């Protein structure tokens, strides 16, 4: 429980800083400061995180990057949540042969090198911002589908579902009104574990130059730019890299803690 509170607190602080930070700084994310190219972090000119090779303020850019990264991750997780819950609930509730075929399909997809398909997609369709959400969400729903299906299998046999069935409630309505609400707890726990995965994919793509494009930025894009400058200006790499690692770590520890706390059936 302590882990959840601590990591949640850190994430909250980061999120607030990402939203409010840029207003506190006199700089913006595109303006070039010719007097401060690759300046080290200092109070001079309010470049608290230093500047990049174009003299743009890294504090504002990093905060903006966190914003974009978190936004992509949350939206992508919602996409994967919708697909995963729908797929898993249907497979689990209908059961029998339908379930067997649907789950076999999930097993098949598990074996694929997804990131390559996402890269293929990004190359083929010109680095579309919206497509990043969809692509990441579309590859992260498998775990969710499996977990939701397992839960639904159990819920299906419960008395209240049987009662609904006997009173003539239609199948889609049972799934939507009686099964889905009972899945909420477990779904929330697993979303916290889906978010870091989505962040990882987004920053991976951006690092390769296939994700978020300049002058917009994300933590992955910033790390990519930092690698190019690291020998002269290590802060351009270290600041966004450590923030990215911190965010991922907090989500992972929090998800792990939540799972231990709420999902008693998951061993350990």
């Amino acid at each position, binding site marked *: 429980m302590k882990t959840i509170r601590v990591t949640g607190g850190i994430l909250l602080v980061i999120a607030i800083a990402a939203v409010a930070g840029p207003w506190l700084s006199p700089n913006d994310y595109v303006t070039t400061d010719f007097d401060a190219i690759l300046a080290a972090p200092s109070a001079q000119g309010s470049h608290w995180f230093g500047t990049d090779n174009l003299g743009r303020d890294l504090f504002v850019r990093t905060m903006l990057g966190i914003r974009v990264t978190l936004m992509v991750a949350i939206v992508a997780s919602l996409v994967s949540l919708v697909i995963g819950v729908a797929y898993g609930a249907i497979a689990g509730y209908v059961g029998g042969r339908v379930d067997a075929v649907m789950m076999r399909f999930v097993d098949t997809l598990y074996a694929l*090198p997804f990131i390559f398909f996402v890269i293929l997609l990004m190359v083929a369709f010109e680095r579309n911002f919206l497509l990043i959400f969809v692509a990441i969400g579309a590859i992260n729903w498998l775990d969710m589908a499996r977990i939701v299906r397992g839960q639904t299998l159990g819920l299906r046999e419960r008395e209240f579902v049987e009662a609904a069935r006997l009173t003539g409630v239609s199948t889609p309505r049972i799934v939507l009104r009686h099964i889905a609400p009972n899945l909420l707890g477990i779904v929330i726990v697993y979303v916290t574990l889906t978010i870091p995965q989505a962040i990882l994919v987004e920053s991976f793509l951006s690092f*390769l130059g296939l994700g978020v494009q300049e002058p917009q930025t994300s933590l992955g894009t910033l790390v990519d730019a930092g690698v190019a400058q*690291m020998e002269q200006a290590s802060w351009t790499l270290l600041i966004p890299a450590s923030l990215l690692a911190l965010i991922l770590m907090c989500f992972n520890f929090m998800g792990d803690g939540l799972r231990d706390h709420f999902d008693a059936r998951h061993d350990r």
Partner: protein
Amino acid sequence: MLRYTLLRILGAIPTLLLVIALAFLMVHAAPGGPFDEERVLPPEVEANIEAHYNLDEPLPKQFLRYLVGLTRGDLGPSYRYRGHTVSELIGTSFPNSLKLGALAIVIALLLGVGGGTYAALRQGAFADRFVMGLSMTGISIPVFVVAPVLVLLFAVNLQWLPAGWSGTEGVGRYVLPVITLALPQIAYIARLTRASMIDVLARDFVRTARAQGLGTLRVIRVHAIKPAMLPVLSYMGPAIAGIITGSVVVEEIFGIPGVGQLFVRGAMNRDYTLVLGVVVFYASLIVAFNLIVDILYAVIDPRVRYR
């Protein structure tokens, strides 16, 4: 066993076909052809180029042609590296990727299983929590953060190891890329091993072995390690996929002429046949590896054959 093996092989074929079809469709559905440059070509020239690469044929026919080529190991010509076939390009760069990947997997297994077992034996103690915390950190930090930070530390500042691949010889150039690739896998395998080891150590046959007076190490080596390794074995498929994904970044950062680098360059240049070829190649590799893992699993745990 033979029946099980054959069924598994048959099961892998549709997976493979699905992958190839999906990748093929994605590449061909891409708006804008591979030869769209800033300079507009005369229509006759364009028609000639398309005819040369059989791009004027209907899509199903192109797909069949591609499949037939695949059976002969022919992935078609590269659109950008003139005069080279995709198979040739992959053939020359794969040995580099293979060496890195194999080393990383071996190291990940040794350290991951060792660390996980140690943590399981010290369950709840400081050592356990330390190892698990460390492994969660290892899972959380992405490859493209670990790699440049290691370069900055060991190559730029301390100058112990080379930062890049070219112009260096010997074992030194393997160290940083292999560590980077192995790190998340070590962490994951350690967690898996710990969980299943704790599970196995609580079983009756382990208690019996202990009651007979066997030492802890011997109990683990003779009785516990085999059942405890089953989840780790199932994880080998995803582990390979993870290492392949990681190699894309690692090869790019360290400048290693491997398949990952080939893929990224191909993606940037819109070299569609090359990108498609790499996806098909790696997907086949992963599917084949999963197949081997499934069969090995059935050898170790015969129960799965009859499910």
